[in-house]
């Protein structure tokens, strides 16, 4: 048992940035920025050759109704973008009881679990669920600094009350990502900082404009912290017609500006591989070994598989995960299958079934989701969906969810 945890312990020791600071306290953002700035200054001479290359007049970025968003270029090499989402939740029992907050199931739901889903509400609620700012700076072709700050649920109607919505819906400003990329070659890149945990497809593509549903699957957020602070080696190896992408990462804890909704890593080491077998079919494999700060007695082993098949607008995706604790007390497992079918105009239908067994639940949580999505050519996305979970799991959304997202 000791031997299996040795690499993790070593990685944690090597990567711990502030060893004297209590792990549960968020890092000072100013200190983080200063540290990254120092890295940038140290790295600058290594890339002076490419930075000194003569710059020709660049062609124009493509702007049009169906083009990808381009952000705003606010200085040479510095681009600012992001997205905002307004979310409407009409929970089933709130609809049935016309605003009776003490509706069915309240006693079971408790409302104090830190893992309660932030999208869950016992009453009708309209929120500015995300207001995200993403900035990236490329001072040289081989260096990129990227930061994302996400204001979550900062505006709510009616205003926030813990008793009604649970701690998961408290307004918060989260540092989603802050990292520096060094491009040694296309096969080998180094990322240092805070990044989205490379487990499964959904977590790294979880931003509202990229997903087909307002509700995240449990599998993408329950079993592991959604972000990690540490080091990552990644790249694309020239294997097969589309290449093999890999992400090898390690975290020593010390999560930067940890969100109160997340139980961050104490230490972690993991690998993700993704490959396209054809233009239509992609597979991914994720493996990780980690300890979380609020569950420091448990060391978890996680294995995940994911696939997506997309052809002529139809997309079928699936993810499955198994997280095992050493004493089997906090084992979680589950998966989902999701389909998206294009309808007329820019409308799509989406359906998802998920089965997931959380450690704290008595039985497996199962849910079905049916929804409609409208994707405008001008970077806004409207979604409306009905979520129907079984009663085995608590603190989860049920009823009608809708959202409107704008990318900028």
């Amino acid at each position, binding site marked *: 048992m000791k031997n299996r945890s040795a690499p993790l312990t070593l990685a944690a020791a090597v990567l711990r940035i502030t060893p004297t600071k209590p792990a549960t306290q968020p890092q000072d953002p100013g200190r983080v920025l200063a540290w990254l700035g120092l890295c940038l200054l140290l790295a600058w001479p290594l890339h002076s*050759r*490419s930075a000194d*290359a*003569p710059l*020709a007049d*660049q*062609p*124009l*970025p*493509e702007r*049009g109704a*169906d*083009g*990808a*968003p*381009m*952000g705003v270029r606010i200085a040479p090499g510095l*681009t600012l*973008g992001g997205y905002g989402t307004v979310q409407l939740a009409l929970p089933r029992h709130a609809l049935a009881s016309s605003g009776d907050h003490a509706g069915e199931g309240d006693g079971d739901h408790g409302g104090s679990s830190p893992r309660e889903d932030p999208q869950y509400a016992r009453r009708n609620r309209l929120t500015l669920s995300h207001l995200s700012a*993403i900035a*990236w700076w*490329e001072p040289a*072709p*081989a260096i*990129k600094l*990227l930061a994302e700050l996400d204001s979550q649920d900062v505006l709510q109607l009616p205003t926030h009350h813990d008793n009604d919505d649970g701690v998961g819906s408290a307004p918060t400003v989260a540092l989603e990502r802050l990292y520096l990329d060094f*491009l040694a*070659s*296309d096969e080998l890149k180094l990322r240092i900082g805070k990044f989205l945990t490379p487990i499964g497809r959904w977590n790294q*593509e979880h*931003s509202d*404009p*990229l997903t087909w549903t307002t509700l995240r699957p449990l599998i993408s957020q329950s079993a592991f912290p959604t972000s990690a602070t540490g080091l990552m080696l990644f790249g*694309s190896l*020239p294997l*097969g*017609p*589309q*290449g093999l*992408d890999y992400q090898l990462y390690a975290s020593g804890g010390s999560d930067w500006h940890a969100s109160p909704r997340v139980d961050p890593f104490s230490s972690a080491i993991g690998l993700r591989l993704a490959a396209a077998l054809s*233009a*239509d079919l992609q597979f991914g494999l994720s493996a990780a070994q980690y300890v979380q700060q609020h569950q420091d007695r448990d060391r978890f082993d996680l294995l995940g598989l994911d696939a997506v098949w997309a052809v002529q*607008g139809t997309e079928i995706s699936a993810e499955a995960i198994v997280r095992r604790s050493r004493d089997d007390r906090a084992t979680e497992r589950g998966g989902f299958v999701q389909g998206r079918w294009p309808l007329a105009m820019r409308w799509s239908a989406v359906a998802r079934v998920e089965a997931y067994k959380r450690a704290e639940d008595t039985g497996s949580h199962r849910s079905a989701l049916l929804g409609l999505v409208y994707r405008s050519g001008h970077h806004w996305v409207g979604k409306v969906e009905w979520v129907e979970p079984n009663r085995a799991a608590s603190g989860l959304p049920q009823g009608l969810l809708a959202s409107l997202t704008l*990318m900028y």
Partner: protein
Amino acid sequence: MHGLRQLACDATRRIGRRMLAMVAPGLLLWVPPLVAEPSEPAIAVIVAPSLVAALPLNQAMLIGVFRRKRQLWDDRTPIAPVNMPASHALRRNFSLWLFKRSPEDLQAYWNDQYFHGVLPPPVLASEEAVIRFVASTPGAIGYVSACSVDKRVLVAALLKGPDGAAPCAH
């Protein structure tokens, strides 16, 4: 039990006979299609003569370059791909022949990349503009009709449609 099995066999045979009766006239009328004449000339992926050492480029490399997953040439010069506008016929064919996807189908990919700070290749409005840009910019790569290539640039790869490529008029 035997009776049920017999019933199932009879039903299967009846359905098989009916399907054959429906399909047979179609088979008799089916005429193998004539070999389609290619209607589009090949697309030439072009680079500056200074990149001769990197040639030729295979399909995986081209996909990586125009998806911006490959960012450096072997000598560490940054790769600078350029596109034609999405409405241009050449762009549509390039996208279909290389990625097996229309430019619209790739929008989801570029939306995803946007959140990682990666933007799609910028665009130039004409083939002449692409040739001039590629010839004068270190690390640049673009594409034009194979009939438009001249000595200012090198052909790194040729893409043809499923029916082959039509000859140039001149």
